[in-house]
């Protein structure tokens, strides 16, 4: 089987979920004796292609075109359709990013194919690939299989695989080949304009290695400083569940969950968060989850590695002090 991984970059910077998907592809390839081809699309991205070539892949496809920067759904569909038709992969894997959600279903449909989107895992059942995704907002999991002939398209949720497990190339560099595509301005019907952030000190929580998140248990905005002190001691970012941002206690950009950001940090410390599914879908891919909550039946404990049943207002300052001491010593 041939697996094509379509990575994602914007203005020369990786979307790190790309490497999680590459890790997924390498895992599937190991189990099914398949080869992996990694593609990157945009303009002025030769360096990124070189970086991919250092990973354990059979080939890197460099899809360069002036009209692929900035991203448009039309441009990507036209270009990637040609790439899929000429590379002839059996399986096309993509990171489940906002950008992929914007074009990949249409790309697959343009080839008469379907996409299994937002997968959290995959397994090889005696030669049949079974993709696992969530339904009913995470209340159930679903085993989904492809029907019909290849190519099959699937996207993986952020945190489903570990980017740090991407295997390097065994003997140096994979070949980088330019994918020849034709794309004209008339094929792009939308016109992307300026990118902007609403808030000045916007933060990219998806890149934060440590996140300290607060929920309703924080009770009042004046208590947030204690959580911020703990985040600072740990060298992490502060984040919150939806109710805290709806109240305006923290900006919306710091919201984790189905309507906010999806993160997979090394450490996720949940303070006074009950663990409603809308929140959990945004952080369950975290490597280590610590939950502190006064309710021992809070669902957050179901996904916590370490749990503390207790008062966050007693534990936050004690923990801040202990972390500072550990770091100093």
């Amino acid at each position, binding site marked *: 089987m041939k697996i094509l991984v379509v990575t994602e970059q914007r203005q020369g910077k990786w979307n790190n979920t790309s490497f999680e998907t590459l890790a997924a592809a390498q895992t599937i390839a190991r189990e099914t004796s398949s080869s992996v081809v990694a593609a990157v699309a945009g303009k002025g991205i030769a360096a990124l292609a070189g970086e991919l070539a250092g990973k354990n892949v059979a080939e890197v496809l460099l899809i360069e075109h002036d009209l692929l920067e900035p991203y448009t*759904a039309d441009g990507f569909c036209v270009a990637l359709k040609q790439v899929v038709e000429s590379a002839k992969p059996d399986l096309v894997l993509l990171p489940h990013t906002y950008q992929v959600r914007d074009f990949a279903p249409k790309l697959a449909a343009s080839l008469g194919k379907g996409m299994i989107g937002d997968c959290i895992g995959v397994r090889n059942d005696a030669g049949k690939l079974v993709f696992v995704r969530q339904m009913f907002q995470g209340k159930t999991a679903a085993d989904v299989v492809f*029907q019909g002939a290849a190519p099959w398209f699937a996207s993986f949720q952020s945190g489903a695989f570990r980017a740090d497990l991407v295997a390097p190339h065994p003997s140096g560099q994979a070949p980088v080949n330019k994918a020849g595509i034709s794309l004209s301005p008339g094929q792009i019907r939308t016109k992307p304009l*300026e990118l902007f952030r609403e808030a000045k000190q916007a933060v990219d929580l*998806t890149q934060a290695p440590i996140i300290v998140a607060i929920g309703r248990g924080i009770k009042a905005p004046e208590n947030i400083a204690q959580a911020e002190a703990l985040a600072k001691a740990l060298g992490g970012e502060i984040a919150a569940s939806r109710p805290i941002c709806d109240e305006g206690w923290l900006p919306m950009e710091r919201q984790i969950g189905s*309507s906010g950001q999806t993160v997979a940090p090394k450490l996720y410390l949940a303070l006074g968060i009950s663990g409603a599914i809308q929140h959990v879908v945004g952080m369950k891919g975290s490597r280590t989850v610590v939950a502190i909550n006064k309710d021992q039946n809070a669902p957050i404990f179901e996904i916590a*590695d370490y749990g503390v049943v207790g008062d966050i207002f007693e534990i936050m300052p004690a923990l801040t002090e202990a972390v500072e001491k550990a770091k100093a010593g």
Partner: protein
Amino acid sequence: MNIIVCIKQVPAKDAPLAIAGNWIKEADIGFEMNEPDSFALEEALRLKEKHGGEVVALSMGPERVKQTIKEALAKGADRGIHVADENFHQLDPLGSASSLAAAIRKEKCDLVLTGLQSDDHGFGQTGVLLAGLLDLPHATIIMQIEVQDGKMRLKRELEAGWFQWMECPLPAVLSIQSGINKVRYATLKGIMAAKKKEISTIPRESLGVASETTQRVERIYVPTKSKKTEFLTGAPKEIAAKLVEKLKFEARVI
């Protein structure tokens, strides 16, 4: 401006889910309008109030989805289209979108709106697939729509706090981000007026959409707990010390 809003009916948020194979037992649970679609409906009603035209609520599923169409009519949609299919929940995203596209082709419309995703299947593909099937430009995760001179200026949400303005010609398909607006409630007057509004029914099999699927849900199940939680106890200072040990030597994050 004539707008078609695609609205799905899904199990009520608090409905207890009893799994049956690759779906749930529908017998004893309530259904409601998919919340993300309610934002799309609201946006359609606001555009109509500003620019005139008509709002059509389009929904697919068994007989019960008429109740959700009626809710849309009560809120201000002008008429409804019900694509009838008792086995709707077995369709894959492409089959579902192909059926909706076939129904939309029978209409004259300037704009098709969908919600971001459904709260049951959560495929999140319908809007983008409709654009492909209808050969229309599209944009997703939309937070603001301004219509001027036959085209739209759209505010699109990107990841990590980024947004982007973009221009999109009409006709087009847009997937609306939840939270774009504050949805209205149906008034008593609206509910009364809805009784006189038309809901046309189209059997899905009459649309001539191929029945082979690209994917199949084999089974659904309650996810197994993947982690074993280690509870730390003691006085706050002891807990803090234990936790720091764990973070330092097991999780290795400090």
